[in-house]
Every structure is written in structure tokens, then in C-alpha cells.
């Protein structure tokens, strides 16, 4: 098992595997998103309170979920990289951070656009989820800034891994403290909780969207990881052979 894992995580193998993997993640992901979009926009019945504006959750909730998942990826990758000195794990952090920031940004934008007709304002400080998303975005900025200001890749990997681990604990604290804070100020909540209370024709498109976003995220992550692996291994023999092969291994 361990041997298999090591072989799988070996850079040349991963580089080739990821290329095969990308379409297998991207195509189902995009199909799920296409279904979710169609069903969410046209099949699901309008919310009795919010009318058709509720349909924004079909992009907001998946991107908010991905924004947190990407951070967890960074932290777990960093932890594995620090403990087992697995270079590929560090590369996951480097590859996931810009994607996580992009989806955090998307979650903020869509949340804000939802807020305009619902609250009459583009930004509502009293909403705990939007506020924690904003802090999460700053955490991503900090992570990327630290990475880019350390020239030595190995050092940048380890330093940002420590930051991601500290940050992931912080994300939890941010969440609870912001919820407490907004309860003091009678803050509004963005969406009522999904789950059993939601009708099936509303819920299934959402689940499809979440799954589809996850697949697409996987494809994007795999693509960025290939770049990271290639760059980190630029001095090795396998990259040399890859580059010198006619047709290449782009």
C-alpha cells in the first residue's frame, strides 16, 4: 500500500496521471453544472419568500463551500508535507491557494449581489457568512503573499504550511466569533438552512452544483499541480527527457 502510494506520488508518474485525470474530472463536472444550472434556473419552483432571487444560491453555496475546502486542502497538504516531507503535498498548497481565493471572491460577489435586492444594500456587515468569507479572503492573500516573498521554494513551502495550519484553526474561531458578534447586532442570515426543509426540486440541483463544482475544482487543481510539479522538478532527468522528446509532454 505504502509502496503504491509512493509510486503514485512520484512526480513523473503524477505528472502523467494528472493529464489523464483532467478530462475525467472536467467533463462530469461541467455536465453536472450544466444540469444544475438548467434545473436550478428553470425547474426549481421559486422560494415563497425570496422569489426567483433565491436561485443565486446555486452558485453561491458551492463557491462558498469550495472556498473553505480549498483552505482545508492547503492545511492538510501543508501538514502532510511537514510531517512526511512529501513534496507533492506542498505543491497542493501552492496550487490550491489561487483557486481558493478565486472561489472566495466569487462567493463574496454572488453573496453581495444577492444582498442587493434582499437587503437593499450591496454589503451587510451584520451577515456572519459574508464577513467570515471576507476574512477568509484576507487569509488567502496573506498565504499567497508569504509564498511569493520567499524565493527558496522549499522554505516557502514549509513557512506557508505553518501559516495554513495556524490559519485553518483560525477559520473555525473566526466562524464562531462572527456568529456570536452578529447575534449581538441582530444580523440577518443570508439563506435559511437547506436540508430536509428544502423541496426536492430545489435541493437536487444544489447537490448537483456542489458536486459539479468539486469536480471542476479537482480538474483545475490537477492542472495547476502539473505546472507546480514541472517547475519544482525542472532540474531532474525526467523533465529533461520529457522536454527533449519530440512532441513533448506539455
Amino acid at each position, binding site marked *: 500500500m505504502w509502496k503504491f502510494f509512493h509510486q503514485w506520488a512520484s512526480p513523473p508518474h503524477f505528472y502523467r496521471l494528472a493529464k489523464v485525470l483532467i478530462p475525467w474530472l472536467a467533463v462530469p463536472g461541467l455536465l453536472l453544472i450544466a444540469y444544475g*444550472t438548467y434545473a436550478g434556473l428553470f425547474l426549481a419552483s421559486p422560494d415563497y419568500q425570496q422569489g426567483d432571487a433565491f436561485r443565486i444560491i446555486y452558485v453561491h453555496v458551492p463557491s462558498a463551500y469550495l472556498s473553505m475546502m480549498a483552505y482545508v486542502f492547503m492545511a492538510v497538504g501543508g501538514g502532510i508535507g511537514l510531517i512526511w516531507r512529501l513534496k507533492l503535498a506542498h505543491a497542493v498548497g501552492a496550487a490550491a491557494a489561487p483557486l481558493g481565493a478565486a472561489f472566495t471572491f466569487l462567493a463574496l460577489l454572488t453573496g453581495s449581489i444577492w444582498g442587493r435586492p434582499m437587503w437593499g444594500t450591496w454589503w451587510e456587515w451584520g451577515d456572519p457568512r459574508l464577513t467570515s468569507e471576507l476574512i477568509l479572503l484576507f487569509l488567502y492573500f496573506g498565504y499567497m503573499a508569504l509564498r511569493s516573498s520567499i524565493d527558496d521554494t522549499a522554505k516557502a513551502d514549509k513557512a506557508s504550511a505553518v501559516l495554513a495550519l495556524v490559519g485553518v484553526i483560525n477559520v473555525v474561531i473566526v466562524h464562531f466569533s462572527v456568529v456570536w458578534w452578529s447575534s449581538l447586532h441582530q444580523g440577518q442570515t443570508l439563506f435559511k438552512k437547506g436540508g430536509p426543509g428544502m423541496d426536492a426540486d430545489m435541493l437536487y440541483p444544489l447537490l448537483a452544483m456542489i458536486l459539479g463544482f468539486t469536480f471542476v475544482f479537482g480538474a483545475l487543481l490537477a492542472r495547476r499541480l502539473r505546472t507546480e510539479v514541472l517547475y519544482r522538478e525542472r532540474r531532474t532527468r525526467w523533465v529533461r527527457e520529457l522536454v527533449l522528446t519530440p512532441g513533448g509532454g506539455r
Partner: protein
Amino acid sequence: MDALAMGNYGAYVWSCFALTLIVIVFSDWRARVRHNQVYRDIEVRIKALEEQE
């Protein structure tokens, strides 16, 4: 047409979906550009080294 208007929320709903599309396409495009850039840099460096030898 009514279905597209989303009960007067059309502008908000459609812009959210459009932004999502933009973010996903942009992320993919950035990733491709960066990959090609890194690949080309490595290629140039290695071929230059080859010629030296």
C-alpha cells in the same frame, strides 16, 4: 421570456451565473497560460544547455 426575467430578479440572477462562468473560465485559462509559460522556460533552458554540450 418570463422565465428569463426571473420575476424582476433577472439581472441579479443572471449576473451571478455569468460571474461564475467567468471565474471558472478565467481560472482554467490562467492555469493553461502559466503551464505553457513554465514549460517553455524549462524547454529553452534545457535546449540551451544541450547546445553548450
